[in-house]
């Protein structure tokens, strides 16, 4: 209660000529920064957001440029998705309460030289901005935002039921590495083949997005993602010890010297309906740099300003962990 008024008075001072306050909603619940080994994964289900008042509230926190982009989308469902995606990013980052001046509206964003979006802290910090990284992904039915500290992150979500217009093996031959094509072609059940294809796709997308250099700078054909049995360690999901003892690794096909062992992955199945892949740099706290701490993952479902829910167990099943 008190923190809401505190936040309200700050933003009132700065933005009172622009803002319309809806005092009936609750404030964003603040959250502690992730540790270096952690990934915070936030997601929103558009079908659960129906209130026009709430959508208006979200629209209100966007920048003019973002609003334009939202309204440029064709059709109401796409407008809504685009709106929720930007609202999710702004509200999520603002929760980390790094600086009391930060509100969802005051955040500024920019793109790195390859076009990857990142937070522009110059509004709030002269130097030493917090090394908070984020990445978003959306499907029509689920929008997600991953957050890490001090590590680039890439995420990708896809509906489990998603089909491809092109033949899966033709598509894989065109875009995936020979190793991956091979691993798909030995699957005889078309449904399982389709699911394995989607898992590979999301993992490859997450990797490229984590690299932050764009699709053309890291062609899908030039790296292989595969699963192997883990020798030690496993993924920790808060409150859930259901993890498979295997890991996901990436290898560079064209240049064996390309460093790939510093990346770690996680693959989740969310609410039984979506695959979500996460890729971030491994955090190594050993002196020789030969260690690697297992990824700690916290999954939260949210409707910003309304409710947050920590997800564990069968609603966020870890399919394959990472070391």
């Amino acid at each position, binding site marked *: 209660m008190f923190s809401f008024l505190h936040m309200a008075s700050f933003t009132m001072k700065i933005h*009172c*000529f*622009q*803002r*319309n*306050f*809806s*005092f009936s909603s609750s404030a964003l619940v603040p959250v502690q920064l992730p540790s270096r080994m952690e990934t915070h994964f936030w997601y929103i289900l558009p079908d659960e957001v*129906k209130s*026009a*008042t709430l*959508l*208006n509230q979200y*629209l*209100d926190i966007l920048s*003019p440029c973002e*609003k*334009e982009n939202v*309204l*440029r*989308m*064709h*059709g*109401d*469902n*796409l*407008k*809504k998705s685009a*709106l929720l995606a930007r609202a999710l990013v702004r509200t999520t980052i603002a929760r980390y309460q790094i600086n009391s001046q930060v509100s969802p509206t005051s955040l500024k964003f920019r793109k790195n030289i390859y076009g990857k979006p990142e937070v522009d802290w110059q509004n709030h910090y002269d130097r030493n901005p917090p090394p908070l990284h984020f990445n978003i992904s*959306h*499907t*029509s039915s689920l929008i997600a935002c991953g957050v890490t500290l001090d590590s680039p992150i890439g995420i*990708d979500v*896809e509906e489990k039921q*998603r089909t*491809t*217009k*092109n033949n899966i093996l*033709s*598509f894989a031959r*065109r*875009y995936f590495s020979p190793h991956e094509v091979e691993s798909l072609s030995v699957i005889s059940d078309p449904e399982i083949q389709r699911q394995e294809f989607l898992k590979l*796709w999301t993992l490859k*997308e997450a990797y490229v997005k984590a690299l932050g250099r*764009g*699709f*053309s700078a890291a*062609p899908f*054909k030039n790296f292989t993602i595969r699963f192997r049995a883990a020798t030690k360690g496993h993924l920790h999901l808060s409150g859930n010890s259901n993890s498979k003892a295997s890991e996901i690794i990436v290898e560079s096909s064209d240049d064996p010297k390309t460093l790939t062992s510093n990346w770690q992955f996680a693959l989740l199945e969310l609410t039984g309906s979506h695959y979500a892949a996460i890729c971030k740099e491994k955090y190594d706290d050993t002196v020789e740099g030969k260690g690697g701490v297992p990824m700690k993952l916290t999954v939260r479902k949210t409707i910003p300003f309304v409710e947050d829910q920590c997800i564990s167990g069968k609603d966020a099943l870890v399919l394959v962990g990472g070391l």
Partner: protein
Amino acid sequence: MAAVSATSVTFGSSLKLLKSSQITGKASSLKMVTVGWTKSGFPSLRTSRFRVSCSAKPETVQKVCEIVKKQLALPAESELTPESKFAALGADSLDTVEIVMSLEEEFGISVEEESSQNITTVQEAADLIEKLVQKNSEA
């Protein structure tokens, strides 16, 4: 506590409109939001740049539109202009890559990875296709 802002009246009236039109629970009320915004002086969205497209043939553009509509499962009557951005039509990364692959098969061309990122609209796709088809015929 009352909300004190110069624009609160505009928001208030558009909110009222939204509440009364929200019967089915669908997000059709977002249409009202669009109107509200332009009423309050928000920049108009009819920002189509005047573009003289003398490169790609109309048949090529038409074919690209067909492929895009099919990939994104758009209704046949949906309006697609050469300037339509794939992302604005709801294409995600997998859709875009599938569209590129369908175009390669349809036109017998090969799109380099570097170029596929530059294909964001129907027009850009059509222009690139014509360029590659011409290169093929010259080879």
